[in-house]
């Protein structure tokens, strides 16, 4: 059964500039028509012909960048905003975790706020009395429930908000980015509740930037970009396409940064970052450095599972017999993640003359999320530099993994039978 039917929904926002409003306000008195003044002077299309259906008992994800229309979509489904054109029909009781604790009054106690918030979300007084203890226990606020809400920490605030909303016991749960503020012990509890929901065949609409969670929870995912539907697919496919799109945009950004760095170095200016620089007499000159994936495509944004070819074009002014090629990778804190050169790997230089090309292949990057800088250098065995490019090249690792550190060794876990532990649900392919 289809429980959420979004049929060709377009939402156009009207922007009113204050200057314009002021002008028309005066003129509105002259013309005697106040309503004429309430006319927009700029239109923004937040949603453009969005079409999809969510079936009962499934979890539907919506992903996209900030400003892509996700929140507008949720507001239209809850009925807070109206579509400019198109139709939305929703079967069943909806509870929206859009902003937790919206409408809490800071001066009155948590207890009174539970009642008011619950009534607002559609519970009757009796239902709240019945569920009150559950709500408080789930929020872990037994000791604070009679204190005014203004004394709560933002975590307590959010826990109470979540606890009320989830206890409304809706048929359809709309979740917008609310888990982002929870602490390490509360978020898993929330996710458990959401899982519980799924098991009871209730419908979930989940909007988030946390792609790993989207992938875990959702059956199908809609990717919105600038208000338009880019794709509805299984989570893995939609998320990959979305990440790819982001990577392409970051790519442009990186190319721009790269040029800026090269220009700065050429003019021998000191960059913002002192580590950036180029030195050496250029007896052997590095003319070009490229980063490519193993398929030969030049890029700056890599996944940790990808490999990288570092291509270095060089020109030797004369026949030189003493030379070492080296590379180094640094993270954004300046920590050396990896460095090697041909000398330490015991290559024996014979000679170099004229143009040449070196490729250093990294089979798999195995780095964690972040921005990295690349050093490329040619020097004598004793360290005298011919051409040293320090931190002049930059790339980024973008991954779904949430691990930390400098480096991501390939790893797996195993447990003896005495340990009961649930594995991550298999990633849907």
């Amino acid at each position, binding site marked *: 059964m289809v429980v959420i039917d979004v049929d060709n929904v377009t939402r156009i926002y009207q922007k*009113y500039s204050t200057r314009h409003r002021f002008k028309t306000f005066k003129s509105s008195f002259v013309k005697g028509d106040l*309503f004429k*003044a309430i006319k927009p002077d700029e239109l923004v299309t937040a949603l453009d012909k969005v079409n999809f259906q969510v079936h009962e008992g499934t979890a539907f994800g919506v992903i996209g960048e900030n400003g892509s229309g996700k929140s507008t979509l949720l507001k239209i489904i809850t009925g*807070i905003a109206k579509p400019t054109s198109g139709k939305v029909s929703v079967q069943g009781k909806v509870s*929206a975790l859009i902003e937790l604790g919206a*409408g809490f*009054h800071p*001066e009155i106690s948590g207890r009174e706020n539970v009642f008011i918030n619950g*009534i*607002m979300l559609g519970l009757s007084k009796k239902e709240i009395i019945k569920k009150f203890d559950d709500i408080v226990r789930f929020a872990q606020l037994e000791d604070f429930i009679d204190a005014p809400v203004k004394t709560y920490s933002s975590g307590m605030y959010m826990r109470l908000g979540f606890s009320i909303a989830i206890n409304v016991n809706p048929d359809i749960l709309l979740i917008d980015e609310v888990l982002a503020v929870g602490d390490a012990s509360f978020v898993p509890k929330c996710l458990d509740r959401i899982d519980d929901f799924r098991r009871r065949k209730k419908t979930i609409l989940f909007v988030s930037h946390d792609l790993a969670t989207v992938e875990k929870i959702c059956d199908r995912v809609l990717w919105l970009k600038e208000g338009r539907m880019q794709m509805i697919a299984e989570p893995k496919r939609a998320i990959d396409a979305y990440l790819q799109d982001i990577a392409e945009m970051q790519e442009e950004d990186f190319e721009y940064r790269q040029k800026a760095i090269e220009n700065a170095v050429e003019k021998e200016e000191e960059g913002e970052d002192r580590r950036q620089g180029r030195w050496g007499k250029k007896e052997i000159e590095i003319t070009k450095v490229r980063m490519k994936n193993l398929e030969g495509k030049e890029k700056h944004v890599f996944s940790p599972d990808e490999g990288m070819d570092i291509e270095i074009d060089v020109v030797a002014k004369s026949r030189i017999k003493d030379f070492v090629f080296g590379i180094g990778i640094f993270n954004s804190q300046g920590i050396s993640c990896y460095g090697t050169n041909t000398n330490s790997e015991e290559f024996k230089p014979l000679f170099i003359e004229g143009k040449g090309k070196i490729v250093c292949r990294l089979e798999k990057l195995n780095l964690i999320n972040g921005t990295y800088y690349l050093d490329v250098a040619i020097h004598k065995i004793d360290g005298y530099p011919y051409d040293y490019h320090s931190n002049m090249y930059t790339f980024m690792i973008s991954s779904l993994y949430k691990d930390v550190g400098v480096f991501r060794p390939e790893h797996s876990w195993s447990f003896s039978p005495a340990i009961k532990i649930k594995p991550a649900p298999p990633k849907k392919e």
Partner: protein
Amino acid sequence: MFHLFKNLKNVYKYRVLIQNLVSRELKARYRGTILGFLWSFFNPLLLMIVYTIVFGLIIRPRDPAFGGSPLMYALYLFCGVLPWTWFSSSSLESANVLMVQGNLIKKILFPVEILPIVVVTSNFVHFVFGLPILFLFAMIMLKKFTVYILFLPLVILVQFVFSLGFALIVSSLTVHFRDVKDILANLLTFWFFASPIIYTVKFESIQKHKWLQVMLDINPMTHIMQGYQNCVFFGEMIRWRRLGVTLLVSLVLFVIGYAIFDKLRDSFPEEV
């Protein structure tokens, strides 16, 4: 009209929320004060004491309309200021309420007209807390208790409808024209003096000028204020026809106010 009934039915479904929001508003207002709810009695009491001192001892107006007694004038003034305060604070707070509660409007689906309704209602409760003080002083100064006080609920009802209609207009327009707030503050000052609160229509100076009488007659607040003064101060029958017409005007204002509010409703989540 069809919309109006549908909307009213919807608001009725949320009556428990209104009730809770009003009680929240009242609790929040005095939260942290030592006297708490007693302030609702003390505020009008102190006001009345100030009036008594200023007019009974210092200014000492002796108009025959108040039996030539300065103390009577203090009571008369209080009789009008108390309901006026209900109206003016309701209006001023309504002008702000949609912006103050903007977060709520953006995040939760509920009939937004509840917010101005709650403002008018919680100010009404304050007004009611002031009534015993009014009755007390009326009893002390007039030395008798008039039966016409029984008609007071009718006057209150008229003012309630009028205040609601006005609050709906003011709250929805302020969303689009923030200027309304400032215009309103000035308008209310003017309106206060344009209504018979610190004077009565029985003054000779008013009886002499026809245009002043017309101005006072077309002001709904005149008839509402006179209603209070007749019931409590003069101990006279309320003017049925005048009050009836005012009730009708109030109902029309309410319908128009609701229509404006309804028309602008969809723009609230974006504009507050």
